[in-house]
């Protein structure tokens, strides 16, 4: 038993366990679940019923069986490759996006530390810079898929994806600069703890959304654009370039793209929660000083999950509300409107900090 505990406490093993718990028990199931929920929720928005036909022995579970059906279907479907495709790149491309999406969770804390033990895979010093690095990688999946498919539509999708990534990467960083300046660190745990401060005694928590409202809007926009979801889904552009970069894919590789999209959706939601909504910190919980540690942790996990789920829902709701931009409008918006705005945000933040702090 003690040996087991010792093995667990080896940092590498501990990290693996955390990865398994956070990624396999939190991110991936939630992502998979969202593939169904997107269809159900959109149905409710649109006065429809949504998927409810797949069943095992007449048990449909309001459509939950579609998850199993879809999974089985994509596993057993033929994995096609177009004539003239670049074999190796074509085969590995779907997993770039998935890996990048999953890697986001490496730095996200889902609850406060208990002693030395953190509910975070790793709390590295560069912190959010890691996020920038990873999200830039995620576009390789789209670009490689687009170029290696030997299809004109896919090529257009791939180029759109890369163009869009470049436009949004820049001001995504700039939008977060304000956060770094306000909380004085790039380390995620530092930012989360910084948001546990309060204004006016214990009245308003110093959440990122209150200290950096404009930064929040900009960062959220940038993240949505990075994950290529509506209204920024020109790379997929299902009505004009059919499905964009993953047009030629089928079976499980196609599912990998889908899964990557939904895991990235969860990633966006958890990043927003972490950076702008106090992360795992339950507001005003410090007033209850005698709270037992285990209860606090549970409350923190619940708070984090609820906020994450809310932002997942919000993104889905957004998708079914707005039309989509044309790709050149996406870029014009990024470069001509949002980049100057984020610069202004940066200067104003710097001025306020200099003047008042």
């Amino acid at each position, binding site marked *: 038993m003690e040996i087991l505990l010792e093995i667990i406490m080896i940092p590498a093993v501990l990290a693996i366990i955390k990865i398994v718990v956070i990624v396999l028990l939190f991110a991936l199931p939630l992502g998979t679940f969202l593939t169904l929920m997107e269809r159900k929720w959109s*149905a409710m928005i649109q*006065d*429809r*019923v949504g998927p*409810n036909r797949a069943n095992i022995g007449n048990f449909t579970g309001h459509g939950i069986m579609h998850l199993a059906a879809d999974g089985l279907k994509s596993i057993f479907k033929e994995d096609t490759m177009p004539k003239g495709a670049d074999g190796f790149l074509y085969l590995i491309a779907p997993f770039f996006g998935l890996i990048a999406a999953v890697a986001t969770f490496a730095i996200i804390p889902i609850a406060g530390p208990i002693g030395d033990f953190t509910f975070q895979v790793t709390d590295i010093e560069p912190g959010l810079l890691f996020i920038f690095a990873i999200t830039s990688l995620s576009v390789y999946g789209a670009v490689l898929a687009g170029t290696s498919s030997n299809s004109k539509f896919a090529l257009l999708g791939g180029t759109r994806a890369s163009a869009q990534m470049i436009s949004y990467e820049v001001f995504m960083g700039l939008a977060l600069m304000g956060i770094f300046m306000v909380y004085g660190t790039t380390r995620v745990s530092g930012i989360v703890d910084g948001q546990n401060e309060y204004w006016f005694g214990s009245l308003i928590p110093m959440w990122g959304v209150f200290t950096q409202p404009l930064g929040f*809007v900009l960062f959220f926009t940038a993240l949505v654009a990075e994950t290529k979801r509506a209204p920024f889904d020109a790379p997929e552009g299902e009505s004009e370039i059919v499905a964009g970069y993953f047009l030629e894919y089928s079976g499980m590789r196609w599912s990998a793209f889908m899964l990557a999209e939904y895991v990235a959706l969860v990633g966006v939601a958890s990043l927003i929660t972490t950076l702008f909504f106090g992360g795992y910190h339950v507001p005003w919980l410090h007033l209850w000083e005698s709270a037992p540690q285990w209860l606090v942790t549970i409350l923190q996990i619940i708070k984090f999950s609820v906020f994450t789920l809310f932002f997942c829902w919000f993104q889905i*709701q957004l998708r079914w*509300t*707005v039309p989509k931009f044309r790709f050149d409008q996406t870029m014009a918006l990024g470069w001509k409107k949002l980049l100057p705005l984020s610069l202004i945000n940066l200067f104003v933040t710097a001025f306020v900090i200099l003047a008042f702090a």
Partner: protein
Amino acid sequence: MELKVKQVQRVDGAKEALYLPAIFGGLRLTVSHFWRNLFGAKDVVTVSYPEEKRHVSERWRGRHRLTRLDNGFLSCVACYMCETVCPSECIHIEAGEHPDLSVEKYPVVFDIDELRCVFCGLCVEACPKDAIRMDTGVISMAYTSRHTFDFTRDLLRDSYDPKSHSNTKYEDNDLPSPKDQTEALPNSLGVPAT
């Protein structure tokens, strides 16, 4: 009435240029629909087809049926009106002398190829004897082989309640193929089975 022209308004001002007001306005609408349907599906207009069926209007032109007189004989006198008026040429009639002298003429063969039929209802209007009707309420015919759609006279004959008709699920085996219909059905003279 004089010609009135209305210039449509192209609203594209400063408020629109902010993007967010319209997006939040839209979100308010979609969220309200979402919440109303989340508990109890209040606005849902979808019909879950096999379990619940749409109300079909009285005038609905569904599958044909051949009506019968009070004495059980077919009303059809094989006058070829429906065959003539049919734009898709899906009706095939062969007339014959009936052994019962009270029946002047009757259809020995009355086939409707439901796959050719365009459900225009012109045959119903053209019939001088009110012998063919399309009021069965059968809105879908889904069988797995082509010959099942060749409805012969005895299948078209109105021998059952049309209301129960719409719920009957036909299997291929339930319907005789056109080739052996004379053997399959004893009453090939168009007289009632009982």
